[in-house]
């Protein structure tokens, strides 16, 4: 199956072209961008990112761990200190808080890796549609299509101000 790679200068046309292609039933689409742009985020996958689930679960695990650990440890070998209760909740809140952040942050990192599909590919190899220009300042829209759709996709990309359309070997 051939792939067409359209090169763009700005994110707006990429989003428009991708939406158009998606509406026409093309599913094998990939957008490459040199920086994050909100207009590109939801074009291919309109669902909210699942990273937030990771952060939430991580944070909740952290707060539970923080309180459970401190309370259990104080009761496991009870030592009376300064006349305070064994489960001194106000002070344990600090540990609970710190672990919320710690677990939340580590879970967010995990979320980035899993949701973003990182590490990606095999060492030192890129997708066929990838180009070093995408880590400069250009955008790419790579469309996998059937032989007979090549002309249509090519025209569509150019109509959306693709400054260059290349056939990437499929």
């Amino acid at each position, binding site marked *: 199956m051939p792939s067409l790679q359209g090169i763009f200068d700005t994110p707006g046309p990429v989003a428009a072209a991708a939406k158009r292609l998606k509406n026409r039933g093309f599913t094998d689409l990939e957008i*490459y961008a040199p920086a994050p742009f909100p207009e590109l985020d939801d074009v291919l996958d309109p669902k909210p990112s699942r990273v937030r689930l990771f952060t939430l679960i991580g944070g909740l695990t952290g707060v539970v761990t923080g309180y459970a650990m401190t309370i259990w440890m104080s009761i496991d070998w009870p030592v009376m200190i300064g006349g305070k209760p064994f489960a001194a909740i106000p002070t344990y809140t600090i540990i609970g808080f710190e672990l919320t952040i710690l677990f939340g*942050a580590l879970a967010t990192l995990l979320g980035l890796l899993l949701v973003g599909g990182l590490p990606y590919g095999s060492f030192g190899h890129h997708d066929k549609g990838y180009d070093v220009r995408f880590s400069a300042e250009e955008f790419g829209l790579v469309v996998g299509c059937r032989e007979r759709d090549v002309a249509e996709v090519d025209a569509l990309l150019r109509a959306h101000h693709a400054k260059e359309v290349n056939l990437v070997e499929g």
Partner: protein
Amino acid sequence: MTPPPALSVAESLRPEQEPVDSKINRDLLQVMEGASAGYFLLLGATLLTVTAAALTWIYQIYIGLGIAGYTHPVFWGVYIVTFVFWVGIAHAGTLISAILYLFRAKWRNAINRSAESMTVFAVMTAGMFLGIHVGRIWKAYFILPYPNQRGLWVNFRSPLEWDTFAISTYATVSIVFLFIGLIPDIAIARDRARSWRKLLYTALALGWQGTSQQWKAHSRSVLHLSGLATPLVLSVHSVVSWDFAMSIVPGWHATIFAPYFVAGAIFSGFAMVLTVMIPVRRIFGLEEYITDYHFDNMGKFILLTSWIVGYAYVTEYFVAWYSGVEPEQTSFWLRAFGPYWFSTWTMIICNVGFPQLLWFRKVRTHVPTLFVISTFVNIGMWFERYVIIISGLSREYDPAVWGVYTPTWAELTILAGSFAFFAMLFLLFMKVLPVVAIYEVKELAIHERAVASEGAH
């Protein structure tokens, strides 16, 4: 000898091939390339100082803490002062990356990477001081709650235990934050690097290609981490301040300590970012990316936090007077007019006096003056911690046990070593990883271009 091939007229007239690389990439990646003799000289000097400090530490571990200037009743000395100082420095990075991110202050984009890296290095430096201070370093792990044959657990009611959790969380989260921000930039460097750098960046970039799926996950992660790091950064120095405020030492036992320390931390952190970035900008010709506008904004932040810190100084004295508690009043009187008067007045002049010059736009945009002011702020903030810790401990309730502490050569060597260690890490970082967040600079540049071109269409 064959003559060089002559260019045809057509060839010489053809416009130059559009370079594969963009100007932003070239400008910002060149920071990592090569190194002047001056760079190596500086790196060598820091390495030498770090070595001297390391040897001193080893000697101290062998001999004991006696070589530090601890005398009754002062058993928290320069090591703790310097610990608090570096934790404070560490706050600017997260403030710039997380809080200004949430406020959509786009000007942070050019300085956030360097500030984040400074955060990580400052926390590393600070963390070492806990080890240096405890003396019997081989027992330092006792502070962690781990199952042991004694069946004992740590005391979670102790501020020192909170501190352990706060500092280690802060170190971990700032490293995660720095790394996540670095991934796309490492990919940029990977696509242009050769030899060992290619290998290193390929491994670190995790196969990043900047697909929309990757960016979406990336933006969400940065947003969530900012949301987590914002309360964290405010909590860390609060917890550090509680190491003092939870005790009953006159001059320490005050509820204002948490916000006072946090404001001071941001104040000193911003000053350190300026102190480091002004020479970096000059040496690497980054004037186009880190502009006077950035320095102007940083100057305003420093001015604002200087006022908060100044207000805290006044409040401390007011509370001491208003409390009617004699030890408290004496402690504060002796701060200003006792054996530590020099530190106190240095602190006030550097932290509240000099920064007032920043009211003037001319000063905020005059880089050499800004550099001098930020350096003075750093000095002043080190002395602030010195004043709080040393003068507080040396003048406690009973005049019969008052004492005067003077730092020894060992403490001063290790203090110098901490600055060298921080500088060394930053110097190495500059040559290995992008010191300006390239993709964030591009984000703004492309956005501007898009607005211009879409207006034209």
